């Protein structure tokens, strides 16, 4: 689960980590109030969306469509203003917020459709001596938390990782010891920090690790962490994502979820414990098990078409779940045919066949439906489908199912 920058900074502050003064606003007037409250002469207004690359992003309607297209590819040096604006008066703050709120921001990470801005964060401006990249996440090869730091802060870290990985410093955290001061110092000196900045960096890095641990984060990224004119360090941006499996013990974090940032179909699927991801193709898929669901998508592509979605109904798919899954699949107007691929293990095929029929009767069937059942009680399942009177196209194997559904969409 992702949260906004202003929420992430609140979590940092709770752990005693210094941040710049700032506040969130949902109206231009609110933004002006925040700016008045934090005082000073320079403020930064930042669009709050769950996507990176905001500064280089552009707003639909503010610039020409070809500029928007370039912004979605992450190109720099574009005309117009982005989702992060420096303001030198309260009036400019108000205008920046006015331009962003309700508008659609397109960045490299949002894709060409962009995302609507519902909230802005107004923060005091500051002088920046240096920008550093800092992040923590799980290192899967080591099964431990890895802390990464790079002197190339502020820039696109993926570029650094791809072209000069040696510029990203790493240390692995021992679960028994935690992030050692010596490890943080190693990173500090490796980044070329000196004087009082070293101890400020060490203290802050250990603070980040505390935040990461107590909140069950899956990623904490500070890009950039800035070195201030007086040698201190401050997080200028903060991205935090949480381990969904741990949210049961963090009701306070669950409350930070911004449903406006999530796909409505995926929210609906989550209610029924279905795992759904919308894709761009024309063949809707319903499969049990994540591995088989991916393999089903793959075989559709192997036969020359594209899947419209990933959908795993899970091991214990009952009638209610299958019906919910059908509704979600058929809601997508791009779907021209549906492929159901169920390997009945503990779940019996006859039960699944009944579920599919009940779902079709309730939801209706506007497109061809190919069903491949295999496993426990498969003969009973096939018989139920055959005798249903519904125009279900039966299939005997994955390749048979894929070729039939591909033929169906091609008419």
């Amino acid at each position, binding site marked *: 689960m992702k949260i906004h920058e202003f929420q992430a900074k609140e979590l940092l502050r709770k752990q005693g980590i210094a941040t710049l003064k700032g506040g969130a606003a949902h109206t231009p007037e609110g933004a002006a109030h925040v700016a008045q409250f934090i005082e000073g002469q320079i403020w930064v207004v930042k669009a709050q969306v769950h996507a990176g690359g905001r500064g280089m992003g552009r707003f639909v309607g503010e610039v020409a469509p070809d500029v928007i297209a370039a912004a979605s590819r992450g190109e720099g040096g574009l005309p117009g203003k982005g989702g992060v604006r420096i303001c030198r008066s309260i009036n400019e703050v108000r205008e920046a917020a006015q331009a962003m709120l309700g508008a659609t921001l397109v960045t490299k990470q949002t894709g060409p459709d962009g995302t609507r801005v519902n909230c802005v964060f107004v923060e005091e401006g500051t002088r920046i001596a240096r920008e550093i990249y800092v992040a923590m996440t799980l290192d899967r090869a080591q099964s*431990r938390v890895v802390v990464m730091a790079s002197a190339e802060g502020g820039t696109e870290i993926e570029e650094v990782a791809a072209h000069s990985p040696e510029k990203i410093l790493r240390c692995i955290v021992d679960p028994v010891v935690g992030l050692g001061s010596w490890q943080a110092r190693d990173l500090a000196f490796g980044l070329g920090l000196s004087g009082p900045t070293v101890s400020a960096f060490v203290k802050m890095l250990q603070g980040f690790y505390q935040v990461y641990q107590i909140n069950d984060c899956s990623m904490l990224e500070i890009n950039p962490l800035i070195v201030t004119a007086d040698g201190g360090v401050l997080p200028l941006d903060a991205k935090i994502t949480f381990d969904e499996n741990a949210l049961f013990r963090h009701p306070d974090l669950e409350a930070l979820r911004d449903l406006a940032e999530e796909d409505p179909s995926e929210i609906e699927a989550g209610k029924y414990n279905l795992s759904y991801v919308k894709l761009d193709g024309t063949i809707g898929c319903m499969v049990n098990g994540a591995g088989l669901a991916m393999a089903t998508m793959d075989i559709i592509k192997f036969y020359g078409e594209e899947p419209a979605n990933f959908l795993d109904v899970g091991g214990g798919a009952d009638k209610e779940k299958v019906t919910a899954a059908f509704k979600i699949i058929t809601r997508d107007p791009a779907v021209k045919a549906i492929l159901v691929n169920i390997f009945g293990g503990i779940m019996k095929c006859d039960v699944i066949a009944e579920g599919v029929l009940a779902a079709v009767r309730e939801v209706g069937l506007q497109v061809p439906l190919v069903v491949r059942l295999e496993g426990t009680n498969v003969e009973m399942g096939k018989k139920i489908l055959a005798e249903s009177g519904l125009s279900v196209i039966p299939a005997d194997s994955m390749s048979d199912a894929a070729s039939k559904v591909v033929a169906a969409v091609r008419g």
Partner: protein
Amino acid sequence: MAILVDSDTRLICQGITGSAGGFHCRQMIAYGTRLVGGVTPGKGGTQFDGTVPIFNTVTEAVAKTGANATVIFVPPAFAADAIMEAADAGIRLIVAITEGIPVRDMIPAWDLVQRRGSLLLGPNCPGVITPGQCKIGIMPGHIHRPGRIGILSRSGTLTYEAVHQLSVLGLGQSTAIGIGGDPIIGLRHKDVMRLFNEDPDTDAVIMIGEIGGSAEEEASAWVGAHMRKPVVGFIAGATAPPGRRMGHAGAIISGGKGTSEEKYKAMAAAGINIVRSPAEMGKKIAEILGHQIEHLGA
């Protein structure tokens, strides 16, 4: 003896009194697995279905039954603790079925398992079966046939698919293993390939990978250097877009890493016989072994 489990395996179940644990324990007993005990704290001294003794702790269960394997159905919030309890009690093979264990709990649990020298399968896995001898997990036993092909995958139903393709062709399985779809798991592709390589009862292996992480690349490198048996490889997720998690917590392409193309490349470089259609796994094995196929189908 195939790998990991056989007819001598003495199994206990942690979480035997829960609904999933109870259901699957009955299935395992029906398959012929030697289920010698269960563990539920506070229910020690009672019996499961009037036949299987229940203990309060794993240590007590091991002392009284000589158990050398455990299967865990404990809810996610308590599952990492159950894994550590089993490792601390000296259980050799820990099979963790539980889905949804927080990563923060698994990091120290996996650390302890390694220090105690146990083998961990999972979590979030279907388990392991040596057909005709021992089933530990949630897979449907009846689709398997005893034989000489090893199967290794992360997920349940895709493993069943591979098993089914082989069984239809008249090819049985030595052992079929689902290692789990979480970012932190115990036994990885490489570890299982090593076991199959050393197993005199396995002639060839189907290795199924998924997008995300680098376990398939590591395993391929190992296969290229050491494997003496033919391997057929498939990677699920060629159609998955970057940055989107495909059901399994580990199945995500991030920062351009973990794509199916990279993994296929590593497999091909290691001499693994890759198939790009999941429907071809069984046929490819048969073709390699020169098996006589009577009903190859479309």
